[in-house]
């Protein structure tokens, strides 16, 4: 387990030290592959038998294994995609060899911090790791290859909002620690496994207060409305492979923190309290994001608001609870982590081709970039929740849970917002895909004359990698629309047990 944490650190160090900008992308890919091959057996064994390490500071069970597998899969996909993305950015002159080295070093540090979140058993260590993800990813956003000042603005908002939010989460952890000292006497406990074993004895009103602080704190990081303001800026200004990581998995690691907390809050306060709060925040997120999706003119921001909507659905699923609701939420985490990165990858190439992130400046993607157009079409249908794609299944499961519990108002609002999102996503991307062909416009940046380079990616090994990973994601989206593979199904069922849902 420790080796999993060491590999990204070593890779980051090597990437920073390496002189050749051409080689560094492949070194980073090798690091990601090594990480995946080491992690796979560990995750497999953790799913069946929970393991502890270092006096219980690190801990892995099926839930952390599930999230960790997503982190590793997406970091691999993103490392593959990054190679050509950065080659292109360098050719256009938006970054130099130094920027590339920095990018890869931070990229692997970012992965390290997210892996630390999933393996931390100690609540304070988990907080430290989540705050570290903020710091590292703020630097990645601030790299801002396309427009420096916008990237700095986005990074500033991101780091300030998330740090303030997460400060409240730390207060929540202090309060939890206080609650455990009352039960255990003298020295309190911070380890999740210990707290869970004494959870029913904790003072309910103290735990309620702690949970509110945690929900506000980690909720800011997970992009739940109304504290989501950083998210559209950060996701639209970050380099595309980083947007994919932020949206696909960073939000989920923060939400993972909330899920761990729900399991130690529920036994003392009862699941109605946490459930209602999560449903409330979930519906607010869906509502606010659906309105912004309807009026959005920038396709990367459109995708960012779609992330808020999907985090709302996940929160809703956990909040509604019961095996069906939690199953839907966990499946939705996986499905969203497949579809959203694909869309960010594709939009990175569309941006490179048309030189703009405005929907009005992009037209006829399907005819000018047939492969990208097809992938965009699959991705957007999936994100909008259209059958027979993956997200439809998980959204339907969450809806089913609401109906089973007789929460008709929740189900009705869910359908209303989902309809808004459906229209907004399809009309936005539909215009980009099908509207008459337009000549690519090169972005109005200072480095003006790069029309010939910006008009397309070159054909090379990195380009084949790049297309391959997008096709892989798209085919997974299609496959998961028809069936949930057996091993994923059984893992989610174990996770439901861990979350203590009956």
């Amino acid at each position: 387990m420790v080796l999993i944490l060491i590999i990204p650190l070593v890779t980051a160090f090597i990437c920073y030290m390496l002189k050749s900008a051409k080689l560094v992308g492949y070194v980073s890919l090798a690091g990601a592959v090594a990480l995946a091959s080491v992690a796979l057996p560990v995750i497999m064994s953790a799913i069946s038998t929970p393991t502890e390490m270092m006096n219980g500071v690190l801990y892995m069970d099926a839930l952390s294994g599930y999230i960790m597998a997503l982190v590793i899969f997406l970091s691999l996909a993103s490392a593959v995609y990054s190679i050509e993305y950065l080659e292109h950015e360098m050719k256009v002159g938006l970054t130099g060899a130094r920027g590339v080295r920095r990018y890869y070093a931070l990229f692997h540090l970012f992965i390290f911090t997210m892996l630390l979140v999933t393996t931390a058993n100690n609540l304070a260590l988990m907080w430290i790791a989540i705050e570290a993800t903020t710091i590292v990813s703020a630097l990645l956003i601030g790299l801002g290859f396309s427009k420096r000042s916008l990237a700095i603005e986005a990074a500033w908002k991101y780091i300030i909002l998330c740090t303030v939010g997460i400060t409240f989460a730390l207060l929540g952890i202090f309060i939890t620690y206080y609650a455990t000292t009352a039960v255990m006497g003298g020295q309190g406990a911070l380890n999740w496994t210990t707290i869970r074993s004494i959870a029913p004895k904790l003072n309910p009103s103290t735990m309620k207060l702690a949970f509110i602080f945690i929900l506000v704190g980690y909720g800011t990081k997970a992009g739940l409305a109304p504290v989501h303001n950083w998210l559209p800026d950060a996701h639209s200004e970050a380099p595309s492979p980083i947007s994919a990581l932020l949206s696909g998995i960073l939000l989920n690691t923060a939400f993972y923190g909330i899920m761990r907390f729900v399991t130690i809050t529920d036994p003392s306060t009862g699941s109605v309290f946490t459930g209602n709060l999560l449903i409330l925040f979930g519906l607010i997120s869906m509502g606010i994001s659906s309105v912004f999706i309807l009026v959005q003119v920038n396709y990367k921001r459109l995708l960012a608001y779609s992330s808020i909507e999907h985090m709302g659905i996940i929160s809703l699923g956990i909040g509604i609870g019961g095996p069906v609701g939690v199953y839907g939420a966990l499946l939705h985490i996986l499905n969203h982590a497949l579809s959203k990165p694909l869309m960010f990858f594709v939009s990175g190439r569309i941006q490179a081709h048309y030189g703009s992130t405005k929907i009005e400046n992009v037209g006829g993607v399907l005819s000018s970039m047939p492969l990208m157009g097809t992938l965009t079409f699959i991705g957007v249908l999936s994100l909008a929740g259209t059958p027979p794609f993956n997200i439809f299944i998980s959204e339907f499961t969450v809806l089913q849970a609401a109906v089973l519990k007789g929460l008709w108002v929740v189900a009705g609002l869910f359908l209303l917002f989902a309809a808004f999102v459906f229209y907004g996503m399809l009309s936005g991307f539909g215009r980009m895909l099908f509207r008459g062909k337009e000549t690519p416009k090169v972005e109005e940046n200072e480095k003006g004359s790069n029309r010939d380079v910006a008009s397309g990616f070159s054909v090379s090994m990195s380009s084949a990698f790049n297309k391959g990973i997008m096709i892989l994601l798209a085919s997974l989206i299609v496959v998961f629309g028809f069936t949930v593979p057996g091993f994923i199904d059984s893992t989610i069922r174990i996770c439901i047990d861990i979350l203590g849902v009956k």
Partner: protein
Amino acid sequence: MKNWIQAFSVIDFISAGILVTAVSINTFKRIEPCVKAYTLNSWLLSALTAVAAFMTGEVHLYAASVVTFLSKGILIPMFLRRIVRRIKATHDVEPYISNALSLTISGILVVVVYAALKEGIFVTGLSKNVLQISIAVIFIGLFIMITRRKAIIQVIGLLFMENGLFLAGFALTFGMPLIMELGVLFDMLMGVIILGIFVIQIKKSFASSDLDKLTILKG
């Protein structure tokens, strides 16, 4: 000595000092005194930890006191001063509201926190004032962050929030295990350094450290 500390309620005295240094931020027109107020605030926080360590005889509190003094009392203020010099923003803080109003609102915040925590669910080892003051300091820090225009003042507001947070943790449970506290401090140190870098970047690319200019991204 221990009786002496209790008889003169040294703990209350120091925590009152922490509150006063936090409130005083509202009155300053320049940035340098704000940094000084933060330094003083951190020194008092460290002193409070030391006094509590002396009273309870816990070794890890002594260590926490020293670490707080070194990081928040010396390192971060030095770093802040360097940034203030780099961006040459020694002058106006430029609040959105007048200093008098801002001071009044801070006062109201303190009263509200005291009233709200009057019959709390918490039983603290220390004087009850410490918890109330800590929550008040957190809110004052947040209030400063949302009413000031300069990027560097937002960082200082955030630092005050964190000092309040440490005080709260200290009031509730005499702090977390030392190793975790060190981790949290390290995170905060890194956060401040990176915020500092961004302050300089903002100054460079917007030719101003006013956050009013950061309004291109919306909707």
